[in-house]
Structures are given as structure tokens and as C-alpha cells.
């Protein structure tokens, strides 16, 4: 199997994008999931629905709104220009922002259910043992929810790798900047380079299968523990 330099570049870009998005979402998604798991506020429902929107929305719709928002006339565009960053669409970091929104439910939902299954009691026990809420979060919740963190991270990473519609809308097709593996395959097919498309597709197929296999094989073990 032969992968061209541009294929390798696309794969590397994809891995970089997915890693950065997963890290950002660990930081952003954890508090959201924690809040959703514990709040009794009435707006838990609406917030939960907003977080889940990318699951059902066509990626092109999400990409379209993000393009408008981050564009020269959008509020985010105004902000980034005022900050001297310039405009985000058709840059790598624009792709990162879009992917964070797109993959948000894949981080938040597994974490939320992991937090919910822990329940109130361990936190109460920790409080009676002098642990502040933040202390209890890191010493009790994180160790108890680590399978949730792991599966949320894997899902987020994999889902970001599998992105296509949002990338086309926000990132376009700039080699080394926004041309990720899925777009590269599309380009190969457009150019009738079926052999290259085959190779890259095979890589993606194997990757996806291994990811899902990891999650499925490892899930029952987690229940037993």
C-alpha cells in the first residue's frame, strides 16, 4: 500500500485536529456534563438539547451557521478581528472551533451518564471526610468516572476524524491547513484517483474498526469492575 506525501500530510493534520479538539472538549465538556448530571434547574432540558443538536443537525447546517458567525459580519468574526487574530474560517483554528461544537455531544453525553451513575453518595461521604467539592471531584469523581472519560475521549477523537461536512463548509480544502483525510479522499475520487482513494479509505476503515472494537471489547470489563 502506498500513501503519497499529501496523504500523509492529511492524516497528520487529521490526528492533530482530533487531538486538539479532544483536549479542548475534555476541559469544556467536563463542567457542562457535571452541571447537566447534577442540576435540578428547569433549563437543564433546553441546555441538554442544545448540546445534543449536532447529533441530528446536518453538518452543513452547523457549518453554515458557524461560517456566518465567524465570518467578517458575524459576532465571533468581529471579536476575533478586534483581538487581532483575524478571521477564523478557512484556517486550522477555525476548523478546531467548528469541530468543538460538532463533537460536543460525544464528549458530554458519556461523561454525563458516568457522573450520573456515580450518584450523590460518594460526594456526601467525601464531604463528611473533610474534602471540599473540588477536592472530592478530583479524588473521587474522576477516579470513579475514568471509564467514562476514556470512552468519551475515544468517541470525540473518532468522531472528529470522521468529520466531513463541517470541514468543507468552514475549512475548505487547503493542503496542510484544512485538508483532512476525509476531504483528501473526496479529492482523490473527484480526480478519479481510485487507487489512492482506496488506500486512504482502507486506513480510515481499519482505524474506525479498531476504535469501536476497543470500546466494545472493553465495556463489559468495566461493568465487572
Amino acid at each position: 500500500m502506498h500513501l503519497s506525501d499529501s496523504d500523509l500530510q492529511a492524516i497528520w493534520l487529521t490526528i492533530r485536529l482530533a487531538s486538539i479538539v479532544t483536549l479542548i472538549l475534555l476541559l469544556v465538556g467536563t463542567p457542562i456534563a457535571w452541571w447537566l448530571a447534577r442540576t435540578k434547574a428547569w433549563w437543564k432540558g433546553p441546555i441538554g438539547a442544545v448540546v445534543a443538536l449536532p447529533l441530528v443537525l446536518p453538518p452543513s447546517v452547523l457549518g453554515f451557521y458557524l461560517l456566518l458567525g465567524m465570518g467578517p459580519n458575524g459576532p465571533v468574526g468581529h471579536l476575533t478581528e478586534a483581538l487581532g487574530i483575524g478571521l477564523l474560517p478557512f484556517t486550522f483554528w477555525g476548523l478546531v472551533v467548528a469541530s468543538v461544537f460538532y463533537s460536543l455531544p460525544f464528549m458530554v453525553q458519556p461523561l454525563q451518564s458516568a457522573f450520573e451513575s456515580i450518584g450523590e453518595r460518594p460526594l456526601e461521604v467525601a464531604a463528611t471526610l473533610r474534602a471540599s467539592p473540588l477536592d472530592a471531584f478530583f479524588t473521587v469523581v474522576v477516579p470513579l468516572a475514568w471509564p467514562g472519560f476514556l470512552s468519551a475521549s475515544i468517541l470525540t477523537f473518532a468522531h472528529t476524524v470522521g468529520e466531513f461536512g463541517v470541514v468543507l463548509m468552514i475549512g475548505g480544502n487547503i493542503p496542510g491547513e484544512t485538508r483532512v483525510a476525509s476531504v483528501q479522499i473526496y479529492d482523490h475520487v473527484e480526480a478519479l484517483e481510485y487507487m489512492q482513494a482506496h488506500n486512504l479509505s482502507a486506513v480510515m476503515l481499519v482505524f474506525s474498526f479498531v476504535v469501536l472494537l476497543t470500546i466494545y471489547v472493553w465495556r463489559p470489563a468495566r461493568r465487572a469492575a
Partner: protein
Amino acid sequence: MNMVEIKAKFHVTWPGFSLDVDLALPGRGVTALFGHSGSGKTTLLRCIAGLERTPHGRMSINGDVWQREDFWLPTHKRPLAYVFQEASLFPHLSVMGNLRYGMRRIAGNHKFSLEQAIELLGIGHLLERKPDRLSGGERQRVAIARALAVNPRLLLMDEPLAALDLKRKQEILPYLERLHDELEIPVLYVSHSPDEVARLADYIVAMEDGRAVAQGPLLETLARLDLPFQLGEDAGVVLDAVVAERDSEWHLARVDFNGGSLWTRDQGLETGRRVRVRVLARDVSLSTQEQENTSIQNILPGRVDAIADDHHPGLALVRVYVGSSALVARMTQRAVAVLGVTPGQMVWLQVKSVALME
């Protein structure tokens, strides 16, 4: 003696339930919060611990305020320890990790060391194990040791035996009795079991529908005939006694209480040992003449003090003083009438069985 040192005043209403108490409790010994499930005793304990948000509550111990209208100390800043009904050990930590969790978060000198807690609860051989490798009784012992290791100024225990079967209960009770003897801090012990209360408590607060309906020192309170709550078949008194003599021929032990003595099965306790004796009202009968030729060995002379209706219209409870100790006998209303039992009368009590508690 028992200074009033714990003050708790809560008035909280939840949908379908309200708690309304204003308590002053002794600052030493074991206080039992006793009542049926749903009477609010666990809720009261949670309020005291700060696990329930109670904006209008007041709680102080020894003059230190934990909360009042304009002040709230969060649970993790209250110098207490809490033993939950289920042991609730952290599953990701070993026994030792669990024991250290609270201990490493407290500052200052430790009156109660980790070693003492481990020794007192007999868990030295379990330290390396994970909680899922422990039996239910072992888990609860670890939970109690974990609570003691934070050197609390108040120990709260929420039915620590309720989730265990009889055998496990028998396994833990001796440890709790040791706690009762060796701890200097006050313990609030939630229970619905008259037996546990009789064994462990010095002071009792009876709860019903979110209110404290009766409270007082245990021995006095159990001898009351006008309790606003019914103990039913468990009505009876507890006497403080001392093992005075052991009869090796018949395997019996004599215990002396203030006013008389009772023979009971020898349970191997050495003479001079202080014990509690529980005498249930249903095991005590009364006669106006001293009986002879009876299988009942414990016959005590006494003076009738009061007669009251029992939980069934056909039954009566009669309180009789033997010396300065009160015993309660259950009999039918007809027996009271036929024998002509009246206050002040001299009678003989026949005690069929007594339960010795360390």
C-alpha cells in the same frame, strides 16, 4: 453529668414531609434517635451534618455554631464524622486508602490515631484489600474506623447495622459497644431497633412524623408508662448492673442492680464487669403472694408504682419499684382487676428471662 452541649433546631418543609425539632442533647455518650422509618430521624441527622440545605436551621455544639440564620458551615468544614447505612466505601481505594482519605485532610493533633481506630474495629488484617473483597460486616467496620480516623467532635451514625443480616449485626455490635465505652465524643445514633437502642444508647430521642415526641436518659425514659410512642412487644426496661457471682455448677451468673439481683445464663463475663440488663415487660409477671414451686428463679419483691393501658385494650403495663429500680410488667386488664393491683401495694415480680448486654 450530662451537660447540654448539642443544640439543634430545624424547621424544614419538603413536599410531603416536614421536620420540626428543637433539641438540646448531651455532649457525651450515645444519643439514640429512635423511630419508625419515615419519622424523620435520618433527615435530622443529615440536617445536623449539613447534607441538607436548611436555611432557617440552627446547630451548635459546645458553643461552636455550625449554622444559624445568617451563617452556614458546609459539611466538609464541620468537625464531624458520618457513618452511612450502607458502608459507602470508596471502591477505587483500598481499605487503607479509605482510612487515610479523611485523616490526611485534617490538621492538628490527632487524639484518636489511625492505629487506634484499626485496633478498635479489628480490621488490621484487611488493610490491603479493596472494598469489593470485604464482607458486609467488614465493610461497615472499615466505614466506622474511617469515620473515627478524622477525629470528629461529633459522630453521626445512620442505622449502621440496618443493611446487615442478623449474623453480621452480632459481629459488629461488640465493636459498637466498645465504642460506647471508649469514645469521649458524643454519638448520635439513628435506629429503629429497640434492641440496639437498649444496648448502646444513654439518651433517647423518640421521633414521629418529623417531631421529637419524647426524650430523656434511656433508663428513665424506658420506664415511663406514658410514652407517646408504643414499643409494643418490645416494651421493657434496661437496668445498669454488675456481674456479682458466677455459678459454675449451673452455668449461671448473678447480676446485681440497684435494689436487687437477677440470675441469668453465664455468658462468660468476669465478675465485677458492668453490664446492662434488659427486662422486657412481657417476661415479667406479678403475684400478690410469694410463689413457691415455680420454675421461675428470679422472684423480686417490689412496690407497685403505676398502672397504665398498653397497646391492646386487653393489656396493661404495671410499673413496680424494686428498691430504686423500676421494672415494668405486662398483664391483662382482667388480671389487674382480679388481683386488685393498686399503686403502693407490695407484690412479687417473677422475671422469666433477662437479656445481658455488655
